[in-house]
């Protein structure tokens, strides 16, 4: 168990360089990796929070008459989901102003003093901000102010692709961030701007299946790729996906962008597996094929060569046969006329 966390954290800090920033780095500079002892210490400290802020805590409150089911309906978390998450190595109080949360009942002011993501992710936020500002989420009137990183990225549960590895899990996690609003009238209404033709009346949520009805096998796509594969601008190899979320007018609609040998999926959903690509058993994009058969992208050049070769041979054979027949018939005709 201990080794797992050590390994998890090493990957988190060393490979992603900046995904997790240590609590001490309030100035926004990259921190040194958190050692396993600190992680254990944080976990132990978090147990005090989970004693109430979890399903088990609500069921069996540490004190009687706490009415936790009602009070904590919006602030409960499961250790089983939080601990493996990217932020699961941290102490809850590193983001949730510790001085207000130590005593009970917690001071009301603490709720408004949750540390912003920039406290640790300043450099990243600075880099991503222009992208976000160009995003449909910032351009729609009144929307930008309602958006925080946490609107899309669940800080308590998200795990970066490199650790999550399995593309199906990455798709499920990332699409959940989009569908939480775009597939829920209730949540969508909290963010929705007024309709263009109906001032004062909030824009209605378009049905997710209806607006994608041009996309064949829609449901298959929901499980196999992320919304952002099409709803973000073109991305260069080894670069991170943009935070500029594109609306339906600008989103990718050319199927061959993914469904071709030079599939963009290589630098998107499968970016974290690029180094594993070895054209296994001769298949193009075998890393994609290890997860999904993507017609047009996951081909076998040798098999294609054999099939094309056979078609050419058959055509050539038929044409040659036909040509010989014609020549032979003409010669017979000529011979007959000569004989006359």
């Amino acid at each position: 168990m201990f080794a797992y966390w050590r390994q998890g954290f090493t990957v988190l800090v060393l490979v992603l360089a900046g995904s997790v920033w240590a609590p001490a780095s309030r100035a926004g500079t990259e921190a040194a990796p958190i050692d396993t002892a600190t992680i254990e210490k944080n976990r132990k400290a978090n147990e005090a929070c989970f004693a109430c802020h979890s399903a088990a805590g609500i069921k069996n409150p540490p004190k009687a008459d706490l009415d936790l089911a009602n009070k904590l309906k919006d602030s409960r978390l499961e250790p089983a989901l939080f601990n493996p998450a990217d932020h699961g190595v941290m102490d809850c109080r590193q983001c949730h102003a510790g001085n207000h949360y130590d005593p009970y009942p917690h001071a009301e002011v603490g709720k408004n003093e949750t540390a912003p993501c920039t406290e640790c992710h300043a450099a990243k936020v600075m880099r991503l901000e222009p992208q976000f500002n160009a995003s449909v989420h910032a351009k729609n009137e009144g929307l930008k102010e309602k958006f925080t990183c946490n609107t899309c990225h669940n800080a308590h549960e998200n795990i970066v692709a490199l650790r999550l590895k399995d593309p199906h899990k990455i798709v499920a996690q990332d699409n959940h961030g989009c569908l939480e609003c775009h597939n829920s009238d209730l949540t969508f209404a909290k963010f929705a701007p007024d309709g263009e033709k109906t001032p004062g009346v909030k824009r209605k949520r378009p049905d997710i299946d209806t607006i994608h009805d041009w996309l064949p096998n829609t449901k298959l796509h929901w499980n196999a790729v992320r919304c952002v594969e099409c709803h973000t601008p073109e991305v260069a190899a080894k670069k991170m996906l943009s935070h500029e979320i594109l609306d339906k007018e600008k989103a990718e609609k050319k199927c061959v962008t993914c469904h071709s040998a030079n599939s963009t999926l290589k630098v998107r959903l499968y970016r974290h597996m690029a180094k594993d690509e070895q054209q296994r058993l001769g298949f193009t994009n075998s890393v994609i094929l290890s997860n999904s058969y993507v017609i047009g992208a996951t081909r076998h050049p040798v098999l294609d060569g054999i099939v094309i070769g056979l078609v050419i041979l058959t055509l050539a054979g038929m044409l040659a046969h036909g040509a010989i027949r014609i020549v032979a018939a003409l010669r017979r005709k000529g011979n007959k006329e000569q004989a006359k």
Partner: protein
Amino acid sequence: MSERIYLLPLWIRVWHWTNVLLIITLVVTGISLHFADPKLPLVEFSLAARIHDIAGFSLVAVYGLFVIANIVSGNWWQYVPKPPGVLERCKVQGKWYLWGIFKGEPHPYRVSEEQNFNALQAISYWVIMYMIMPVMLLSGLIFQFPQLAPDRLFGFDGLLPVAIVHYLTGAAIVLFMIAHIYLGTTGKTATSMFGTMITGWHEH
């Protein structure tokens, strides 16, 4: 005037030309999907996918009707190469295609109402219609219901073997179609066999 017989009832001709339309549609859209590339614009991908699905389901229905009609009418018997001497007849037929036809020798097999096909035709039609076509259709159906395919196989998506079987059987049908169309010109005249498939009448 040459002797002629009424060889092909209306339902076989309608089935055949429906097959022609559907298979050509499936081949063109299938190529557009499998060899999808921005530099190879045949049919736009999403359109090709929709057409391929519709044409595929139609071909499944047409094949189902073909099998039923074959059983009811007894036409299935035409596809069975009848012994004795099947191999010998195949040899004679093959020799004619490879040599006799160039010398203007008469067709070695005389078509009859009882036996429409020569031995090579019967065997190849049987293989295509009762072996390759059902496998191609079944693998296409599994594509529509991917939950029927294994989840994973040899470290790849379980749909891969289904896709390969579909691709190769489809390719086999393309090869058959090329040869079939060409051999259709080997009748009494280059167009007489096509005429038979339109009118039902065969001229000896």
